[in-house]
């Protein structure tokens, strides 16, 4: 059963800007005070206790039932959404990224654009932020592990972003690459990892240009926490979560379908398309049901999974005539 609750949860989850700024001043005050008293508190200790996220200016999503960019389904709190993550660069346990991702430096950051485009090059994030207009999207995120969450993202349309680089007619696919930096990413140093770093993902050009495909730079009104893919990540709501690659440093446009990380690890388990599909079950998990998080033991919120994660009306046309059992 789907339990719908009013969307006013959203406003209570977002810390008002004034309170946020006051807290910031307070924390800075403590820092200065401590130094003045010669307490010699380590600067990192203070930095860690301060929320490094910055407020973002964006246009809020239009809260209408027929708006595909919006849903009124129950949302996790920011604390929950930022402490339950799959980001193997920082460990394989769901709670590892929140513990380990603070080591990542996200400033300076740039995205390398390569391949079949008119304007290749290295694009610094601050330039990207100036050129793009930020908006909010509230999407369902369905993980291949049969759990899901509703997340209020902040970012811009991937199509608008791609248009900036002028892809040529040769560009049939776009490949995304996550940062590879062993010194800051604990999981990349692990001897037990099955992933051949760096992590890569890909989309067909028409998928990438679809209005639902989104580049996120924030969530819950602020910049992304590192464990959620800071400073810039992909969000493709009709595909399993692993397609929504995090901490992107490279976008390569190509005529050949790129090999994605999970395809390389287990091609019989993870296809290139990875569209949410309750009828095609994964060898490890039935995809017919999902646990909508947060859940509790008394109300496990076990719901039926919808084709294309409920975005079929918008995206089914992309796959007309394709056998989705074969092209999973």
């Amino acid at each position, binding site marked *: 059963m789907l339990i719908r609750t009013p969307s006013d949860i959203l406003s209570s989850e977002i810390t008002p800007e004034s309170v946020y700024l006051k807290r910031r001043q307070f924390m800075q005050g403590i820092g200065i005070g401590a130094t003045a008293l010669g307490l010699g508190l380590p600067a990192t200790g203070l930095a860690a206790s301060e929320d490094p996220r910055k407020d973002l200016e964006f246009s809020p999503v239009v809260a209408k039932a027929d708006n595909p960019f919006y849903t009124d389904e129950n949302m*996790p709190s920011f604390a*929950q*959404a930022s*402490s*339950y993550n799959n980001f*193997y660069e920082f460990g*394989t346990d*769901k*709670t590892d990224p929140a513990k380990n991702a603070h080591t990542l430096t996200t400033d300076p950051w740039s995205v390398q654009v390569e391949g079949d485009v008119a304007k290749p090059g290295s694009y610094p994030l601050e330039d990207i932020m100036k050129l793009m207009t930020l908006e909010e999207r509230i999407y369902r995120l369905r993980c291949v592990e049969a*759990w899901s969450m509703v997340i209020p993202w902040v970012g811009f349309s991937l199509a608008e972003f791609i248009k900036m680089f002028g892809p040529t007619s040769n560009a049939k696919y776009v490949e995304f690459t996550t940062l590879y930096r062993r010194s800051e990413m604990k999981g990349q140093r*692990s001897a*037990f*990892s*099955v*992933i051949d770093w760096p992590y890569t993902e890909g989309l067909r050009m028409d998928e990438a240009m679809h209005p639902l495909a989104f580049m996120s730079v924030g969530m819950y009104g602020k910049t992304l926490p590192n464990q959620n893919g800071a400073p810039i990540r992909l969000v493709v709501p009709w595909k399993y979560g692993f397609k929504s690659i995090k901490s992107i440093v490279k976008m390569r446009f190509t005529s050949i379908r790129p090999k994605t990380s999970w395809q390389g690890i287990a091609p019989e388990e993870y296809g290139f398309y990875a569209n949410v599909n309750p009828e095609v*079950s994964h*060898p*490890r998990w*039935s995809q*017919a049901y999902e*646990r909508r*998080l*947060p*859940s*509790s*033991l008394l109300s*496990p919120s*076990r719901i039926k999974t919808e084709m294309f994660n409920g975005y079929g009306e918008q995206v089914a046309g992309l796959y007309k005539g394709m056998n989705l059992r074969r092209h999973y």
Partner: protein
Amino acid sequence: MATLTSKQLYAAKAVVFVICLLPLAYIIYAALTQSLGTDPVKSLIHQTGDWAIRLFVLTMAISPMRAWFAWGSALRFRRMLGLYTWFYTSLHLFIVTTYIFAWDWQLAKIELAERPYIFVGFAAWVLMVPLGLTSNNRAVRALRKNWARLHMLVYPALLLAWLHIAWQVRSSYFDAVLYGVLIICLLFQRFQKLQKRL
């Protein structure tokens, strides 16, 4: 190590009994205070499964302990640890049946048929059932020689439990390697003993 007197043994058993209940106490506490995390179901499944395999390996380490540390009293704890292994395995199975299959037999049947790791895990539990049921003194006496033969089932159960873990490896080999090495060590000791006897 010294052999324990019956009084000491009684006390030691009580301590081990309580220690083995601690994971359960923690799980219940975390469930009641809603601190099992964002995905409590997954957390419950992992915690009960982890304790089941840990206790299983510990149970199987008892008889080699007699040889390695010349500690005969170790054997007196084996039944309790074995029963706790069965208990945490049953709890693990119960949580999966309740929260993943929602007691939907049709779904459970499909899952068992399609997902070998679930099948071998379930098979390990099935093998534990006769072992648990015949763990009392009366059954030991009644079954005589057959009791030891019947309890050879722990070996396939242990291998199936390991397979259940190894088959799920998705991103990290750590658990599969750790328990694999421990199990090989435990089996190697038995193999050596067997060779000496021949």
